């Protein structure tokens, strides 16, 4: 199972946030199949050597946001219905991600055209993996 989560201590980002982010990234990259259970709270905690409460909290947040759902007796799965952000929230998030991407690319010396080209390439690639809609 290609879901590898690794956490960093000593970061500005709290551990629980890192888990949330990495689960989301894994989902987006298509590394988790819809019918695949995620690792249990305990097994993930023992693998990462962190407090199970932290994992539980991360999963809880993901459930609240509709990213994951808990099926009784079988574990945690990707939610069939993914959504729930408000329009404003979605706009804020995309704006944040794009700002970060574009400023980094400019810093690296890419031109606007090159950036747009890279983005187009990536969108195509991920969409074909089932990441879109």
């Amino acid at each position: 199972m290609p879901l590898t989560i690794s956490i960093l201590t000593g970061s500005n980002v709290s551990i629980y946030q890192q888990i949330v982010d990495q689960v989301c990234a894994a989902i987006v990259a298509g590394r988790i199949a819809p019918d695949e259970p995620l690792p249990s709270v305990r097994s993930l905690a023992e693998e990462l050597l962190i407090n199970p409460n932290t994992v539980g909290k991360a999963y809880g947040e993901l459930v609240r946001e509709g990213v994951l759902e808990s099926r009784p007796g079988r574990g945690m799965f990707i939610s069939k219905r993914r959504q729930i952000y408000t329009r404003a929230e979605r706009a804020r998030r995309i704006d944040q991600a794009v700002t970060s991407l574009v400023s980094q690319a400019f810093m690296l010396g890419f031109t606007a055209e090159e950036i747009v080209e890279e983005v187009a390439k990536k969108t195509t690639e991920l969409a074909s993996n089932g990441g879109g809609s």
Partner: protein
Amino acid sequence: MTETVIETRGLTRYFGNRKAVDGMTLVVPRGSVFAFLGRNGSGKTTTIRMLLGLLEPTRGSASVLGVDSQRLSPEMRARIGYMSESHTLYNWLTVRQCGEYQSRFYPRWNEKIFQAVVGHFQLDPRTKAGSLSRGERAGLSLAITLAPEPELLILDDPALGLDPVARRSLLESMIYVTRGADRTIFFSSHLLEDVERVADHLAILDRSVLRACCPMESFRAHVQQFLLRYAGNTVPPAQLPSIRGLLHARRSMGELRLTIAGANSDTHQLLRTLAPTSIEEAPARFEEALVGYLGNRGERGFFLEDTTLLETAGARS
């Protein structure tokens, strides 16, 4: 079952005229992994000894599992596991004999756990405890502490002096203990990485005074880092005004980095009066937050600044 496993009320201890612990009021919830943090000599070991009834408080009280610490009965002591900083053992006993000896005291002794921990640390049962390395001693000490399956584990700096492998084994054991939902761990440590991983509550003892007692999340959320940039001709002010909750401040070229606890809108306003070009705010890293709490408050760091450079730079640009 009580909600809290450890409670103190104004716990104070003097050694001669020196206050080792000053008016500590602390609550440890059941089932938590509670980190007890503070510098060396700030009173952590003294507090732990008072909690276990090994030392009498000068003033105030402490209770463990609902019972006053000075009146712990043998039955209560069977439910509390304690590992001291020095991993005390009887050096003339072998590993196996240590286990046998300890098992005679505890009605509930899980030999499998003892063997598992001993095996995990790769201890030869026939070695005398006195010949074990530091990490091995910690392992044996941990084995005899965990085997009675205590409801409350009190560990005083358990990872002191351990090599990375032993430290990892220790962490794994602690996470193993959390399998029991009502089992609590109260431990002190200087290894902030491990604390960040495994603790869900913390308390901070700053020179005998308790400055924080809260869940880990609250602590992280409470301490923010503000980066004030000064571009162009602007310079950071030479004197900082008094900022409530300021833990630490550092200047560098055109920048002022402030670690502030409990920042609110007033704080933001105050910062704007310092006229920076931009303010960035981010949660502080755990280590920075903690060191900020425990270090010398205010504007001080080790690296000496050459202020002439700053002035020249300012004048030039």
